[in-house]
Every structure is written in C-alpha cells, then in structure tokens.
C-alpha cells in the first residue's frame, strides 16, 4: 500500500493494455496481454488482494495467454489493426 508503487504499476498496466490492443502481430498482442495480466496481478498483490492476485497470475497471465497463443496458432497471426 505504497501509493507511489501503485501509480507506477498502474501506469505500466495502462501502457501494456494500450500496447496489447495496438500491436499488429497477434502473437505479440497475446504476450503483451500476458504482461498486462501480470502487471495487474502485481497491482492487486500490492493492494492486499493476495488471493485475487494469485488467481490472476495463474489464470490471467498463465492459462489465458496460452489460450490466446493456441487460438492464434490455429487461426492467423496478422491483424489489420
């Protein structure tokens, strides 16, 4: 609960989020989304929500990213936007 930390991580979260939706390579976007989730997980850990952070680390940053990668593998990697 140190607000400087919070704000730094929050900024990183937002940057990752924007990056994830603006990268044209979908595999890159998936990985950036993983990074976004991981930043989010850090933020929540800092805010004292350890269980939620744990879940986000395993579900959001872990399995979700794998799902994205698998889906991108099965479809196409490039995106027009």
């Amino acid at each position, binding site marked *: 609960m140190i607000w400087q930390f919070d704000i730094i991580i929050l900024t990183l979260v937002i940057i990752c989020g924007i990056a994830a939706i603006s990268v044209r390579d979908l595999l890159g976007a998936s990985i950036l989304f993983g990074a976004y989730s991981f930043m989010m997980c850090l933020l929540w850990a800092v805010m004292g929500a350890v*269980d939620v952070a*744990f*879940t986000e680390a395993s579900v959001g940053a872990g*399995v979700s990213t794998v799902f994205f990668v*698998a889906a991108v*593998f*099965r479809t196409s990697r490039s995106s027009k936007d």
Partner: protein
Amino acid sequence: MKSIALTSVALLCAVLIYSTMGFPAWGDSDSPASTHVSDYYIENAVNDTAVPNLVTAVLADYRGYDTLFETTVVLIAGLACFFLLRRFKPRQPQHRLYRHIDTGITLIIEQGGKEPTDSEEFVRIDSRWVPYDLVIQQASCLVIPFLQLFALYVIAHGHHSPGGGFQGGVIFGATIILMAIANDLRSAARRVSERLGALMASAGVLIYAGIGALCILLGGSFLDYSALSKLFAFTPVMARSHGILGVEIGVAVAVSAVMIWIYYNLASAGRHEEGL
C-alpha cells in the same frame, strides 16, 4: 466505427468520472463497503468455519453458492469448447508424418499405409513441426513434478494461505499444458486423455454439488456443510472446515481438467491429432 467507439467511450468515461467524485476516498475503512457486511466475516469467520484465510471462508462457505456456479461456469466453458470445436471425423485426405530419430528423415504415410507405430526408431510428428528445443524439453520435464506438487500444496493449504482449489487447479492444468507445449499434444494426451479430462471436469463439479446435495439429505440447507457433522464425528465448525476442503478439491479437479480440455480443443482446432 471509430467515431462510434470514441463517442461511447467518452460517454462512459464522463458518466464514470461524474460518479467517482461521490466515492468514499480510497482506503477509507469507514466506507459502507468496508463496514456493513464485511466486518461480520472478518470477526466471525474463524469462529464459524475455523478457516483463517477469510477469502477461502467466504468463498467456499458464506458465498459457496456463488462458487458452485463459478465452477460450473468453468465447466460450461469446457463443454462449450468441446461442443463448438470438436471434430471427430479425421481430416481428408489423411496422412501422417513420421520422423526417423537418428537421421531426421521424414516419412509421409498416406491413408491406409503401414505405419511404424511400434518402431523405436520412428516418432510421429506434426505437420507443422519444428525441431524440439532440448533445453525447453528437459527443463519442463524437470519443473513439471514440482509444479504439480506445488499445485497440490496450494489446494490443500488454501485454508491458511493464499490459494485454494482454483489456483491449484489451474496450476495443475497448466503443468499438463506445459507438457503439451514442450513436447506435443499427443504426449500430453497419453497422460490425460480427452475422455479422462471430460469425466474429471464433470466429476469435479459433481463433487461440489454432491456435497451440497448431501447436506440437504442430512437435513441442512443446500451447501450447509455443518450438516455433515451428522455423518462424521466432527463438530459443526470443523465440519464446515472439512466441507470447504472437500469443495476445494472438487473445484481443483474440475478446473484443472477443464483447462486441459479447453487447451486440447483450441490448440488442435478440435481434431486432437496435432496441436501447438
């Protein structure tokens, strides 16, 4: 489309900014959210359920009904992926690729051809195959047992530390997925077949809902674990604690199986032959 998007985003943001002004300041421990209901949990959860991790206590007991459906949602995702993607008919024309391990020569076996299935020297490969990375393969082999052990710890220790059925289940599922990524889909499917995954997924939720229904049979309300004390020699409080553990195990079984199941279907686009 962009203009619509920007307008709706601007509208949403404007409304939210307007309302945020009325929020209690961040971290205010006297705000309604932090006083009305939650105090009860903090002060009584240990007495009621003997579970120090408040999140677990509330998750699996006070709001166990929510969590039952949360697990069901996961099961639905698994069912839906299977329902939407699974294709039982093999691709036409069908051919399989085998690689001679020593020389690296690839054999293409057309449909009906004799396959070197029992040969030690050939290994089946995917059509989009890249040479295995030794480091990844060996490292994952090394890590997976520990990860699985950790997953079991997380499940079992959810009463006292962060974690529980979901986290442990996901980690356990992730180990199998890791196996599939590091080797190939078939080697993972040899460990956990699709049928086993599907059965486990349903069985996990069934454990949860079954414990709840058992409580009804024992004279309590649905999911009222204290009723289990009639069956076992527990005090009602300990019955709740053990009930929570049972439920967490059900969740873990279901979640891990569903994660694997979804991965199989997504990565192989429903054919379960070749995958990421």
